[in-house]
């Protein structure tokens, strides 16, 4: 028996992976732009977000079409529902990458500050999480997804360190207040991106195993 739904699902998978690739690129470029103070690269990141937004709507429409026309059940249903949610998270990650990029020209304009070294570490960790979460979608790999969930703690820890460093900076150099707050918000955005990667990983676990692991401690 040919399964028309299979073709639809393969197509949906390709699409969500394209969104994932765009988001991964946007995030990675936003960090490069931040570190190199490259305002033109930052500009490109900001404009690429429109493409992500457009794709997000397409993916959602595709999911709704499959639900309405094919009434998927079991693994197929879990896949479509997981894609709906992952799609949402990816779009949010795209917005956060754009927000990071937005800070680049602002930082260049204000009183110069050195980025806390933890920003690089944190960004690298978060980028790895994004990459792995997307790989776990492609390969329907719950083991990798579980690993992503565990990595989130390291990002949260880095964020706390950066926060402390920024508080010290503000006390020591009040004239840098505005830019230090911008750095703080960048680190918050990175942390949120890592959280979204965790959400994606949790949706992969649901997709493969059928268990909703959100709000449960990792073990």
């Amino acid at each position, binding site marked *: *028996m040919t399964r028309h739904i299979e073709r639809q699902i393969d197509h949906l998978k390709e699409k969500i992976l394209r969104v994932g690739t765009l988001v991964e690129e946007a995030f990675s470029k936003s960090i490069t732009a931040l570190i190199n103070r490259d305002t033109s690269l930052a500009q490109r990141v900001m404009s690429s977000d429109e493409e992500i937004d457009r794709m997000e709507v397409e993916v959602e429409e595709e999911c709704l079409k499959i639900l309405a026309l094919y009434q998927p059940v079991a693994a197929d249903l879990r896949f479509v529902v997981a894609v709906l949610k992952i799609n949402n998270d990816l779009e949010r990650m795209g917005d956060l990458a754009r927000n990071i990029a937005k800070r680049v020209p602002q930082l260049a304009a204000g009183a110069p500050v050195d980025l806390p070294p933890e920003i690089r570490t944190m960004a690298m960790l978060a980028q790895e999480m994004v990459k792995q979460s997307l790989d776990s979608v492609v390969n329907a790999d719950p083991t990798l997804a579980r690993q992503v969930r565990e990595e989130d703690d390291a990002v949260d820890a880095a964020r706390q360190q950066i926060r402390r460093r920024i508080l010290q900076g503000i006390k020591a150099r009040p004239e840098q207040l505005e830019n230090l707050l911008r750095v703080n918000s960048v680190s918050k955005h990175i942390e949120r991106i890592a959280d979204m990667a965790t959400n994606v990983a949790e949706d992969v676990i649901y997709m493969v195993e059928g*268990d909703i692991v959100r709000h449960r401690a990792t073990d």
Partner: protein
Amino acid sequence: MQASPDASPAAAASGRGPSADPPADRLAAVAAGLEVASEVHEQVLGETPVLEIDRFNLWYAGKQALHAITMPVPHNKVTALVGPSGCGKSTLLRSVNRLNDLVQNIRITGDMRLNGDSIYDPRMDVIELRKRMGMVFQKPNPFPMSIYENVVYALRIDGENSRAVLDEVCELSLRGAALWDEVKDRLHETALGLSGGQQQRLCIARAIAAEPEVLLLDEPCSALDPIATGKIEDLIQELRGRYSVLIVTHNMQQASRTSDYTAFMYLGRLIEYGPTPEIFTKPILRETEAYVTGRFG
């Protein structure tokens, strides 16, 4: 954890998740004639059964059609039997009211119990047994008499003659079968003038008039158009909680929409049996998953 081959269904059900002790390929094993354990979800075992099917085997002329089926059918719930053609679901349903007794060259081992009474006990009076069950077939089979007489038929043959009693049962049954409003003004006209969907609801009314302990539905919508099918499905939903229903269906969405429990059968074996929402969102076995998503069958 190493599951022993004779582990109880409850023990097997506790090892949740597709990764738990996956058999190489149950369907291939079944096709090769091997016996495989049924995966019965714990929730099913927690229900009070109206009907207990107990290690039931059936051979048609030496060919085994049912293999050691053990399944409790819960009281006041709708239980759907699904599976590809030839899986034995209709044979199993027809074994419940011993319709297969009429088939030549049949051999049966094991038993079924209706509210504790052995169905296959040689002393069981088959006519009395069938009075305790209602059955509705694929094609509506109204008797060539009035709508009213169709509904009260079972009471009539039991000697009930009180007009008041018959009128009341007729109305209640037709209401129960969601047909009353459509036929109340022509109760004494022939039932053969009803549409196919109405005739099928009439057959359900006739079945429930006798207050059956279990209602057997053998693909009750397969001869009906989508509107009539929708009405029967609504009706089955209505019967939930008031009647114990065992329904055979080819239509997977019908099983998912109308039943509380779903049993998946394949080549005469019960493969997986559990709450319908579980079977259609996260079945334990890959084989069930493959069937409900239409990957085979």
